[in-house]
């Protein structure tokens, strides 16, 4: 047989855990979640990119 003291202790632990769970649940605030600020991205009104043009020029032959 399980000791009555152990049963009482387990019940008390269960009560404490339940109370803790109630506190956690109550602390959830739906409005605060809904109002989490979104990252602010500023509108971008201009952009700049580069390309390249290249050529290899061989010196013209000189006529003596």
């Amino acid at each position, binding site marked *: 047989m399980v000791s009555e003291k152990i049963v*009482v202790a387990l019940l008390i632990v269960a009560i404490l855990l339940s109370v803790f769970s109630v506190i956690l*649940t109550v602390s959830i605030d*739906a409005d605060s979640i809904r109002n989490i600020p979104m990252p602010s991205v500023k509108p*971008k009104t201009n952009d700049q990119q580069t390309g*390249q043009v290249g050529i290899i020029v061989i010196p013209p032959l000189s006529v003596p």
Partner: protein
Amino acid sequence: MKSNLLLAIAIVAILIVFVNLSITLTKLQDLRNAVTGLAGSLGYVNVTVNTQASISFTNDTLTWGSGIVNTSGGWTNATLTTNLTAGSVTGGNWSGSGKRGLTIENQGNLNVSVSLNSSQNAVGMFGGTAARAAFQWNITAVKGGSCLNGTSCGTTNPQNTTLGTWYDVNTTTGQVVCDCLPWGDTKDLISIDILLRVPDDVSYTGTRSAIITATASAI
């Protein structure tokens, strides 16, 4: 006595569990309404799409290989040009195969005006007799309607540069080459064809290059 104590504690525990359960269910309903896209009278989704001016060189490099002006054939310069599919060369022995102009795509969600600036002009690129040298660009719309008249696009200071026309490159201030490059996928691509004219008395030989800077401004 002890059994009564156990009974009382058990009842308290069960009551607390029920309280906890009811609170949890209530909170879950609140969260469901608050943070999901539930399509109904209680759910909502708030989305903000920011505007963005963004362009990209989808072809950012034009490299002519090595070549020489055909002076023995009587040419005073060599002219190298590109178009959308291939390049062409007269008066020199560069290869025009596979030489395409630079292309710019509007990848943002705003109509933009595009201006170009080059780090070199013909004199800086080749030297020699100025009248025999040239460095020009020519804008064409790769997709129909890719470059609209600025007046029709609401541009405050339209330049209305003519498409398909060769202009000397600008090294000081950017030249507006397209008043209105739309952002729609069917009309967001322009080509910058390049003309290089190498004089026979070229001063600068070897590898010559210029950086083309494209600036997009939201309209």
